[in-house]
């Protein structure tokens, strides 16, 4: 990456407002993600984290404001087109295709890629998640919660995205699995994947992220280096519980 500041941003969200009917869920937030970073978006339940990711992914349209991805204005582009531009969202609650096999789920993750690339992408995912390889032919609905999360992440990675957005990957998982998922996020980061991470588990998110934004009922409260926020008294009190 070279050139001006502007082109160094992979994702640039500027002053977006998102509504659900009359409910004003996102009230003018701005933030950015640079290539190679893990940026965390933390905040309490209902703060608007999922709404933000869904809007970037194109599932929701902002009423105003703009979203630029890889230098292109993508505001209002439908989700099915955003995938082809290199954006993947691993949604809250995993939302894997329960009735399809593990292998089919992964194939669907590569829907935006040429068929010739599926096999190698799947090899990569199986290397990262050997557990999925063992369960390849199993119907996804029969997987354990942790395995389903791995499948959801693997499925998102099948499209070889330039930006991977993870919405609460640790939700509902036992502590040991949470550790495992975050270890994988760290590995993906080390391998150069850019990640926008949404978490309620602020402790874990801040320890793996480079930078973070704190979302408070539709607006951004604090932001900064993750390590600094981790030691910030206000953040500790509000989000880390100590």
């Amino acid at each position, binding site marked *: 990456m070279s050139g001006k500041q502007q082109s160094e941003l992979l994702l640039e969200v500027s002053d977006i407002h998102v509504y659900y009917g009359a409910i004003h869920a996102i009230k003018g937030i701005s933030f950015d993600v640079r290539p190679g970073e893990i940026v965390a978006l933390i905040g309490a339940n209902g703060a608007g984290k999922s709404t933000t990711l869904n809007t970037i*992914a*194109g*599932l929701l349209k902002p009423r105003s404001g703009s979203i630029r991805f890889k230098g292109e204005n993508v505001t209002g582009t*439908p*989700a*099915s*087109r955003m*995938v*082809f531009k290199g954006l*993947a*969202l691993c*949604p809250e609650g995993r*939302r*894997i*295709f*329960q*009735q*399809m096999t593990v292998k*089919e789920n992964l*194939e*669907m*993750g590569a*829907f*935006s890629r040429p*068929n010739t690339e599926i096999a190698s992408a799947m090899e990569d995912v199986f290397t990262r998640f050997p557990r999925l390889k063992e369960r390849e032919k199993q119907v996804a*609905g029969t997987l354990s919660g942790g395995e389903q999360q791995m499948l959801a992440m693997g*499925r998102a990675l099948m*499209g070889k995205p330039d930006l991977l957005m993870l919405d609460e990957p640790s939700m*509902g998982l036992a502590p040991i699995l949470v550790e495992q998922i975050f270890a994988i996020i760290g590995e993906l980061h080390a391998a150069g994947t850019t990640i926008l991470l949404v978490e309620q588990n602020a402790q874990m998110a801040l320890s793996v992220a480079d930078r973070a934004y704190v979302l408070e009922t539709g607006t951004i409260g604090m932001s900064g280096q993750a390590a600094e926020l981790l030691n910030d008294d206000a953040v500790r009190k509000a989000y880390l519980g100590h």
Partner: protein
Amino acid sequence: MAFLSSLVNGLSLGSIYAIIALGYTMVYGIAKMLNFAHGDVIMVGAYIAFCGAQYWGLPPVLCVLCAMAVCTVLGVTIERLAYRPLRQATSLAVLITAIGMSYLLQNLALQIWGANPKSFPTDLIAFPNLSLFSGQLKVSGVTVVTVLANLVIMVALTFFTGKTKMGKAMRCVSEDRGAAELMGINVNRTISMTFAIGSALAAIAGVLLCTAYPTLQPTTGSMPGIKAFTAAVFGGIGSIPGAMVGGLLLGIIEILSRAYISTELADAIVFAVLIVVLLVRPTGLLGKQVREKV
């Protein structure tokens, strides 16, 4: 032998129900709506095939292909114009629209082709009659073609949804529309595709139905449509094998009731069986048991 003969007739009628039920069930599974105009698409298909044979002098194969093409365009257009604008509306609004569409098609047919029943050319499907058990069981050519057509359609659809990219995309949309979009699947296009397939199948069903029961009028599609819808619910709406099983069972029950119990009560018995099945298994015979996930 009389029983066997009834069974064969039931299989034949059931195959027609099954082909129609596939249209209901696929559209329900993917677009999450009941397309009550589906039965009337059958009627349009039959009229087109009729016109092809009677007025345009087309060979039988072209009549059927023509009917399929017209129904495909019709089905996709109905979805585009009437249902797509209601994608976010309540299901009641969509249902009422579908019923309205059904009346619209019937009345258009009344305008174009008139109220007098047409006698459908029974030689459109020319297949030799079979004579089995040294002549004791006669199976008409139409029956053979109907059962075979049903089999071919079933195998083709199973392959399509199980192995092709588009077919798998359909299964994704049916399971979780939002997640499907996140894969890059164009949901609108997938729904159009579903209407196209269902409507093409409706055309085939129309030709088979009218060859077996050769009176064609604007209301020809309604009763088979309702029966096939029942079959889809019976088998488990949303499930492709369910439509097949439901259609076949419904046809067999109907013909056997007619033969052995009462002609007048046959339909009542069909619906009574449906009610019993739904009481025992609310999702139908092969329907997915919805599991609550945490």
